[in-house]
């Protein structure tokens, strides 16, 4: 998989192997549906005061949930537009419009957090200090978390470049 900017100046992941394309497609998953325990991390408590917790549950968390859902809808549409090479080149490509980068960062982050929480990954595992066992669902989930981190880093890099140009 190669990361570059397209002719339009948008982030472009090209020559994506079908194996990794499968992970990109998994980015369409709704964390609340697929990772019910892990998704609790997406709406953390704002503190300890009971009154604050109640306010948060009633007034803030529904809005946050709607925000995450709408960002994911943008990502789902981009993934649905992924293109696959024909014939002997079954590699995929994904172009992300610049204005969708925030939605991608949020959605990938939500999935990484939900997966990490669901599988109780340790800091050591997440910092590549131990090798994942790829024969297990847990090991594959860690690979997924790390793959999304790579995509996030690529997108952050372009956002930072834009910011540096703007300063």
């Amino acid at each position: 998989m190669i990361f570059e900017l397209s002719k339009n100046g948008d982030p472009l992941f090209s020559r994506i192997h079908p194996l990794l394309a499968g992970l990109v497609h998994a980015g369409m998953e709704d964390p609340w549906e697929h990772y019910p325990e892990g998704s609790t991390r997406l709406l953390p408590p704002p503190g300890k005061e009971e009154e604050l917790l109640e306010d948060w549950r009633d007034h803030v968390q529904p809005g946050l949930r709607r925000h995450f859902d709408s960002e994911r809808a943008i990502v789902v549409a981009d993934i649905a537009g992924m293109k696959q090479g024909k014939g002997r080149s079954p590699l995929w490509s994904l172009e992300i419009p610049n204005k969708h980068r925030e939605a991608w960062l949020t959605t990938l982050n939500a999935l990484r957090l939900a997966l990490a929480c669901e599988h109780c990954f340790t800091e050591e595992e997440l910092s590549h200090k131990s090798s994942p066992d790829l024969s297990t669902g847990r090991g594959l989930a860690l690979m997924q978390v790390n793959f999304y981190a790579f995509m996030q880093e690529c997108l952050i890099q372009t956002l930072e470049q834009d910011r540096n140009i703007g300063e």
Partner: protein
Amino acid sequence: MARSGILESPEVSLSEALDHPWLVVVHNDPVNLMSYVSMVFRRLFGWSRERAEQHMMEVHTKGRSVVWSGGKEQAELYVQQLHEFLLLATLEKSSG
């Protein structure tokens, strides 16, 4: 980026807010990328890269960093915005 879910909170006088400022604390988590946390700090608080990285490193090494202090209503808004970015943020009353 959409901002939604405005909290209703009792009005706090300026002197009360100054006497008992609320702290916005960001806590460490092993998943959020360091570059992402710095980017969020720069964007939300308008900080320089150096200041953002300093607070990010404080979160990473000490487990938490106070990123803002002041009145409760604004503190709640910052916590809400940090949650939109999926950072672990809480509101704490200053003990000082």
